[in-house]
Structure formats: C-alpha cells, structure tokens
C-alpha cells in the first residue's frame, strides 16, 4: 500500500522533473502517463457524484429539485442532453449552453433570482459551486455519445456567425483575439499545446471534454470558466457568466466539434 502511494508520489515528481525536458516528446509522454495514472481516479468523478445529488435535492425558495429541468430533450431527460447543446430553446427564445440552461431551470423551477443562480459559478478552495458540480453531472451523462448539436434553427445559425466574428475580434492593449492562440495548428504557448479550434480533428478532441478536472487549479472547471480564463489572458475585462458572447463562441466551436465523442468530464493540465 505505502509502496503504491510512494510510487504515485514518485510519478508526480517525475512529471515535475520532466516538464522542462528539452525533448518535447518526452515531456508529452510524461504528461500522458500522468493523465493515465489519474484517469483511474479522475477527481471530476467526485464533482459528478455531488452534482447528481444536487440535481435531486430540493433547493431554492420553491424547494424544488431540478428533476423536471428541460435540457432540450424534454423535462427530466439528462442522458444525451449535453451532446445536443448548445441549442435554441422555445421557452426562453434564446440559444443556450448547458450552464445558461441550468440557470434558467434554477430560476423557473427552484425560484432563485437570476443573480442568485449566477452568483457563484466557479468553485474556490473551501467554496464549492453547486452549478459547476451539476454541469459536470449533466455533461458526464452524455459520456461516450456522439457530439451532435442541432445548429439548424435560424437563431443557432445567427449565433454561429456572431461567434465567428467574436473569435476573430482583436482588441485591447495586446491586440489579442481567440484566433491569436487557436487559429493555427501545431502551436503551443510555453509548453501547453494549443488546439486549432476551426480544425474538426482538434475541436472534436478538446471541446467535448469540458467540464474537466484541471490539475493546475485542483478543481473541476466548466466551458464557461475556460472562456472566462481565455479573456483574462487576452487582457479583456471579466467575461460575464453565461453572457451572449460566451454562448455564441460555443456555438461557433461546437460546429467544428460536431461528430466527436463526448469525453466529459475530462482531465486537463
């Protein structure tokens, strides 16, 4: 037993030691190995379990659960719903991603105000985020399924075009856009590989594995957090949670990721 823990510790050390290795292949291999070691016990599983519990828990002023929440496949259908998002919803008249749809359900079913539902989107040490856990649970319920959002409704097509413009929109003191880092293949920032998000092969792999446990942050992070973090790097102000731009960008990326397999919750650096 102790030997096993020691072995795991040694493996973690090996990863740290290998990170500055000159040979990129060695670095890459060690990262893969680390991932394999952790995959057996992806801590995102804990968030998934907590999320499932929260899904069924009576919460909010109306003391209701989310079990009647319509994620696009009808009230209460969780399995497969994430593989069909983002999409247009008739009741709200908007294109919504998973997290914005959860906000809608927390408001309509549980009686939270919208501000309350959006207040704590990303967890921090000692401060869990229910919506983050619930999103992990819902996404995990599509694991192994083909990612196939509809992208047919005029509003979905409009969101795609808006998302495309936003993807290339350069602004701020650094002139950065999403395309600065994600417009070409085979690039990396420091040692981190950067996917070209308009290449289906790459988009299918990365887009479908959020939410993911981020080892560097010691926490599960959602797609909303990924975008928020990108804009932080881009020297933009804080991106509003479930904002229009965040959803339009997801619709844009989702088109290229279509046909991939949902691998959520994933495990990332």
């Amino acid at each position, binding site marked *: 037993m102790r030997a096993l823990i020691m072995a795991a510790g040694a493996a973690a050390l090996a990863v740290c030691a290998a*990170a*500055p*290795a*000159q040979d990129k292949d060695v670095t890459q291999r060690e990262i893969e190995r680390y991932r394999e070691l952790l995959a057996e016990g992806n801590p995102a599983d804990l968030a998934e379990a907590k999320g499932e519990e929260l899904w069924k828990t009576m919460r909010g002023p109306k003391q209701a659960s989310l079990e009647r929440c319509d994620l696009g496949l009808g009230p209460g259908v969780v399995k497969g719903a994430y593989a069909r998002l983002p999409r247009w919803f008739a009741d709200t008249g908007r294109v919504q991603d998973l997290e914005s749809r959860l906000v809608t359900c927390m408001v309509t079913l549980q009686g939270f105000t919208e501000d309350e539902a959006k207040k704590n989107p990303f967890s921090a040490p000692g401060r869990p985020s229910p919506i983050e856990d619930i999103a992990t649970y819902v996404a995990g319920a599509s694991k192994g399924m083909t990612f196939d959002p509809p992208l047919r409704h005029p509003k979905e097509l*409009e969101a795609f*075009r*808006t998302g*495309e*413009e*936003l993807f*290339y*929109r*350069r*602004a*701020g*003191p*650094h*002139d*950065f*856009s999403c*395309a*600065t*880092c994600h*417009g*070409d293949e*085979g*690039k*990396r*920032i*420091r*040692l*981190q590989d*950067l996917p070209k998000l308009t290449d289906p092969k790459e988009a299918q792999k990365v887009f479908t594995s959020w939410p993911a446990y981020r080892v560097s942050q010691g926490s599960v992070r959602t797609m909303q957090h990924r975008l928020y973090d990108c*804009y*932080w*790097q881009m*020297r*933009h*102000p*804080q*991106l*509003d949670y479930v*904002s*229009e*731009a*965040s959803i*339009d960008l997801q619709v844009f990326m989702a088109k290229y990721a279509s046909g991939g397999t949902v691998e959520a919750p994933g495990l990332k650096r």
Partner: protein
Amino acid sequence: MRSAILLAACAALLAGCTTPPPEDDARRQAQGAFERSFTHGNKEMFARVVGQDDVQALCSRWRNRPPADVAERIRKSQAATLVYPADGKLMGDWRQGEKIAEDGFGLRFTDTNQPKRPNGGNCYACHQLAPHEVSYGTLGPSLYRFGRTRGSSEAIQRYVYGKVYNPEAFTACSGMPRFGLHQVLTPEQIRHVVALLLDPESPVNQ
C-alpha cells in the same frame, strides 16, 4: 419589358445601398453581443476593448490575412507611429531583458491589485530565446541566436526596437502585441529586450 429591367436595376441599386453585406451584419451583431457580455468587470478595461482601432478592425475582418493593399496601408500607418528614444540609446541590459521576457504579469483583470509592479513582456510564451529556458512557446518564430547571425549594428538595433514597439509597422496583422505603442512596456524596458536579443553577451547569442 424595358421598364421592368430598369426597375430591377433600380431595386438592385437600392438594395446595394441600403442592405449591408451579410458579414457587416454579423460584425454589428458581434459588436452588440460583445458590449452586452462584459458588463460586470473593470470599467477602464472595458473602455480599452469595446472599440477597435484600424489595425484591429481590419485584421479581425480579414482574419489576419489581409490582401496586399490593406497590408500595405496597415504597415504605412503603423510605421508612422514608431518613436525611438531621444537619446538614441537602443540597447539596455540583457539581464533585465531576460526578466521581462520571463514575466507574464500585467494588464489582466487580476493584476490591478499590484499597481506598482511593472508589466512583463512574456516573450517566452511565444518565442524560444535563451536555451536554458526550455518552457517556451511556438506562436512566434525562434529567436535563439538572433543577434549572433545578424550582429548588433545600429540598423538592426533600430529594427528590433521598432519591431517590439509596433510589429504592425513590419508585418501587417502580426500576432504580436504593439508593446510600445500601447504602453505595455516602457521605452526603457524595450531597450532591455533589444539587448537580450542583440547583446553578444546575452545568453540568447551563446
């Protein structure tokens, strides 16, 4: 028959004048969505990203691959922004340049709580420079031994200083920030970066 053609022509003309091409429409939509999506953050930061200057607007529109005439226009307008230090000194201390190249601090919305800390250049995020730093990015070309092959004449010093100050003056729609023009780095800091690249003593040139 003839009047029908005329009518059609008029309609086409009118349509041409009043209906914008669909991509303009998408851009307007995107601008609206953008303005409605950063409402809770730092207001000064918002003011810096809500509008686009000509370079940003053109490069966004052309997806960073502008046609030759647009590229020429960008290079010309940006060359006019280049400002060199009045004392003519373009090379600083490569040791300080190395620190600037490693440092990614500055202008992110969480950086406002350290107002006195200078911004970094974060060169290693995108470029290979000194060989001892193996954690380098590849968004930009490798600059290892940049000065060794080019020397450190005044002409090359001016080129490097200008390139860091405003890369758009040399390559339209470059992915590199305009460090000098946008006051991300001070003239003093740019001099240190020039030394990092060109000083024969700099680890970049070993």
